[in-house]
Structure formats: C-alpha cells, structure tokens
C-alpha cells in the first residue's frame, strides 16, 4: 500500500534529519568565524578566499573561514550571547568594547595590532541624484529647507551614528561651538523625511523609492549604490567628514577554547599585508598601509578627516556614546524638539 510506504519513508527521513540536527550542535572548532557588520560582506568574502590561499601556501593546510553579518550592535550582542566568533569586525569602537566588557576580549585589544587595530578606515560621504540638481556640496546644505536628507537612525544603525557624528563634527571641527553644532544637526534631522532603522532600509528609500535629495552613507556603500543605479546617482565628497574606524579584534576567550588562536592571529595579521590591503582598497575602504593607499590615491579623493573622539572633552568613546546616543542624550533631545 502506497500510504504505508510513504509513511515509512517519512519516518526514516525525519529520523535522519533529527540525527543530523543533533550532531550539528557539536562545536565546529576547526573553522574560523568572522562576525562582521553589514556593509563589509563583499569585502570579507574576497579577503577570506585570499586568506585561505595565503595560509595554505605557508602552512599546507587550508583554513575554513565563515562569515556572519548583521547590524553592528546586534552582532556584538550575539557574540556576547555565545556566537563562537574568532574575529569580530564591527562598525563602532563601542560595539567591540561591549564584547570586552562581557569578558570575551582581553584588555588592550586596541593596541594589539598595527594602526590601533585598524586594517582600514572609511568615512561618510553624500550620494545625490545625477547632476546634483539641488547643488549639495557641503554639510551646511543639509539644513536648507529645499533639501531632503536620507540617513538611518543613529539609535539603531552604525551608519546612522557615523553620519550623526560627521554632521556634528562638520561644525565643531571648523571652529563652531557645540551650540552651533546642535542648531545645525537639529535643522538637518528636520530635513529627514523617513528615519530608517538600518542602513539598507535607508539605501532602499533613497535609491529605489526615490525619496530625498542626499543620502549619507559609508564611502564604500556609496560606490556600490552609484554603480547599481546605472548612472542615476553620483557621489559628492564634502570638504570635511568623520574618520570612521571599524576595528578588527580577535575574541580571546573563544580562540582559547576552540584552539584557534594561531590561525585567528594569522588571519588578522594577514589583513595588514600588501595583498589584503590591495583587496581592501579595491572595495573602496581606505587601506591603512601608506604605500597601498598612495597607489590607489585616485579612488579616494582628498578631504579633511577627523576622529569622532575629538567631539567630547575626555576624548573617549564611552563619552561619545553617553553624550550623543544614550537614552535621553543629545540625539533624543533633538528628536523630541523636532516633534
């Protein structure tokens, strides 16, 4: 009888699947896991492949590198909750340090690798409609009443945080006071018609739904967005912007448990080699190796880049977070005033 055969088949299939699931729970210590933020997916895919070749040439074994992507803050949360990351490459210092605070990273992670553990930097630039019809050239243009600004919320998005800091800094770094910065940023956020929760949502709003005149985004994302638009969009570099610093760190507690310390270390060291720096430049991230950066000068127009920590008196990221983004801090006050 067909029913009986079908039932037997289903039972065997389910039993096999159950066994597979149960075994899939055993820790996968043989592979590296890089837990990263969203805008670096294509970069890490290429870097991981290059690293596998590089490591195989040196040690004769091919390492296996997996990657996980999500919002910077939620990725940090997942690592704290037990995602077995060997390496984290998050958008913000505060997210990386949150993992240290949970005890998974050793103190002093920031000084362990060259350039304060920064294989590359980036910045926030403008994407505008073709021909720049609204003539957006500098930050001050964002507060003009005829300009609509697209940027994700700094409460939930790394991109949004860097954009906020760039706006604030554009006033302060050119000699303005905090009060002037606040007035400008308040005016600019009034020009935001939709405050998306995540970077990708903001990109959709701007590029696909055609809302807004200028989109604030990572330099590398801006290049992707412009390429995809097929000529409908273009990039504008403001004269000054924030130096975005996505740190890369080894998760010490995890690599000790998984016995992957040596491979993880080789992986992060690899990021500073000429080969990886070239890949980084080709994905429109600014390599920190001066020679490689000089060779790709043409990809990265010159603009004044400033560190976000100069915006608070103590010069620490904890203070940046507390001053601008904490509950009831400046961004919340600006939002409340805008309503």
């Amino acid at each position: 009888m067909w029913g009986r055969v079908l039932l037997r088949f289903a039972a065997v299939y389910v039993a096999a699947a159950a066994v597979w699931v149960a075994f899939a729970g055993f820790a996968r210590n043989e592979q590296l896991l890089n837990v990263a933020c969203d805008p670096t997916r294509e970069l890490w895919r290429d870097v991981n492949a290059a690293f596998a070749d590089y490591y195989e040439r040196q040690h004769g074994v091919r390492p296996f590198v997996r990657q996980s992507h999500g919002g910077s803050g939620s990725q940090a949360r997942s690592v704290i909750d037990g995602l077995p990351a060997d390496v984290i490459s998050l958008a913000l210092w505060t997210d990386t340090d949150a993992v240290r605070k949970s005890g998974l990273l050793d103190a002093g992670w920031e000084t362990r690798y060259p350039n304060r553990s920064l294989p590359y930097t980036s910045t926030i630039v403008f994407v505008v409609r073709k021909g720049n019809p609204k003539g957006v050239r500098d930050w001050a243009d964002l507060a003009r009443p005829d300009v609509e600004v697209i940027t994700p919320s700094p409460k939930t998005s790394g991109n949004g945080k860097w954009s906020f800091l760039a706006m604030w800094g554009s006033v302060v770094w050119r000699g303005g006071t905090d009060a002037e910065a606040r007035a400008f940023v308040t005016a600019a956020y009034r020009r935001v018609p939709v405050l998306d929760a995540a970077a990708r949502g903001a990109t959709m709003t701007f590029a696909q739904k055609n809302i807004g005149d200028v989109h604030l985004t990572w330099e590398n994302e801006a290049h992707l967005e412009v390429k995809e638009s097929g000529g409908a969009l273009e990039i504008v570099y403001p004269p000054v912007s924030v130096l975005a610093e996505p740190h890369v760190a080894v998760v010490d507690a995890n690599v000790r448990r998984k016995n992957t310390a040596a491979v993880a270390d080789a992986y992060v060291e690899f990021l500073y080699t000429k080969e990886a720096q070239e890949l980084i430049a080709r994905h429109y991230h600014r390599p920190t190796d001066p020679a490689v950066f000089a060779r790709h000068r043409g990809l990265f127009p010159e603009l004044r880049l400033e560190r976000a920590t100069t915006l608070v008196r103590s010069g620490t990221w904890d203070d940046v977070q507390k001053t601008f983004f904490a509950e009831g801090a400046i961004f919340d006050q600006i939002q409340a005033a805008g309503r």
Partner: protein
Amino acid sequence: MAAEPETTPLNRRRGADPWYVRYLLVGLTLGIVGLLVLVPLVNVFSQALANGVGAYVRNLFADPDTRHAVFLTLMVAPVAVALNVVFGVAAAWAIARFRFPGRAVLVTLIDLPFSVSPVVAGLLFVLLFGGQTAVGAWLRDHGYQVIFAPPALVLATAFVTFPFVARELIPVLEAVGPEEELAARSLGASGWQLFWKITVPNIKWGLLYGVILCNARAMGEFGAVYVVSGRIEGQTDTMPLRVQKLWEGSDNPAAFALASVLTLLALVTLVLKVLIEPKVRADKEPAAKAG
C-alpha cells in the same frame, strides 16, 4: 436535510440587498485580494524569472550558500514538525480525554506561541541557552552549541509552530468521543493497540491537516530563527534568512528566485489543505458520518 435552511435565507438576502451594495462589496473584496495577494504573488515570479529560466535555475543551485539554506530548511522543518506531532497528540489527548486541575491553563498555554512575537520567542531561547547563562556556559564548555546552531533553529521553529497540531486535534478528538476507545479497552486492548488501531485512524485527517499547516509555517519562519541563528553564511541560514540576505546584498533576482520556491511551497500547502478539508470536517461531525 441540512441544505434547505441554509439556502433559503441566502436567497432572501440576495433579493433584499440593492444591487450597488452587492457590487460594491464584491468589488471591494476582489480589489483587496488582488492588491494584497495576487499582485505580490505575480511579482515574486516575474522578478524571479526576469533574467530568464537559465538565470533562475543558476540563482537557485549555483551558490553553495543558497544550496545549504535549502538543505538546512529541509532538515530543520521536518524535525520541528515531528516534535510537534508528538507533543501535539499528547497534549490534545490529555485535554480532550481527561478533566484535571490546570486543564484550562494548559489550553491557554498551547495558544501562547500565537500571541508571543516570534522575535521574543527567539530571545527566550537566547536567554535560556546563551553564553551568559549557566546552561549555555556548561554546554559550551562541553563542546556543544545549542544557540547559533541547528538545534536552536529546531527549538525556535517548534516553539512558534506548536499550536498547529494540538489546535487541530482537540476538536477532532472531542467530536469522536471516547466510546470506541472504551469499547476497545473493555475487549482487552492494550494502551498501544488502542492508540494505533482506534485513535490514530479516527484522527488521521486532522493530524495530517495540522502537519501540513505546521510544516508550511515551519519552513517560512523568520523572526524567531533570525534571532537564534547567528546568521552564519552557509551554516545557520535557512531559506527565509537567505532570501533576506540576498536581498540585502542587492542580489534581487536570486532573492526572488528563492522566495518563489517558498511561495510555491505555500501554494502546494494550499492545494493539499483544500483537498483534506472535507475529510477533516467529516471527522469533526460524527453525527453526519453516522447518518
């Protein structure tokens, strides 16, 4: 005999309502269904096939991460459904056959996954098995990963789809009544014989119906699975997660190709549901069956 009282009021209504009310209501319904269901449905397939059939097949099978997502869904969903069949039959049996203190609470608890947001359901498992908890730390130290690995995907999926089987079986079991089981018992049947020879044949259509609904929901589950998956490419991405990732990576044709597979699955579910529905209804109306 049941047909007459049903049709008469319907006929009377047909004459009573003015024509514009009828046309307005029918038009509104068709419009809403068209706008909310038909247009997106057609859109999924047209976007998936935008670059031709060859590109469609390539999008589905060329990428190892996408292949793994399909494989993972085909592993996770059946196990979650199987768990729910066991728990669902046990719970429905207990509720339909026995009166015990806390029965009302149990009935309410079965519906809990319907009212809890899937994201919260996922977080429950993170809070239970996460690295910050004693259970999670113990498992980690013994080399077993529940959260951010397939076992958590199964748990989260099973939690979210729990009500489907139990909800479907309780009314069937109540309608069938305990008489046949009592008769079998009095003739000396063992508990096992009673279950396989009397109960299962009585509830099989209801059970199948519950399994189909449960499976459809299990394969499509996103929120709870997203939270517990850790989003590791080629390892913990199920089909819905992979669709989102492809879409976020701006690979729209590939995202829609995979989405179209999920949509096809939903359509198959719908057809099976329509086929089985009359049999379930017959099971729930023992009087009609006897007559």
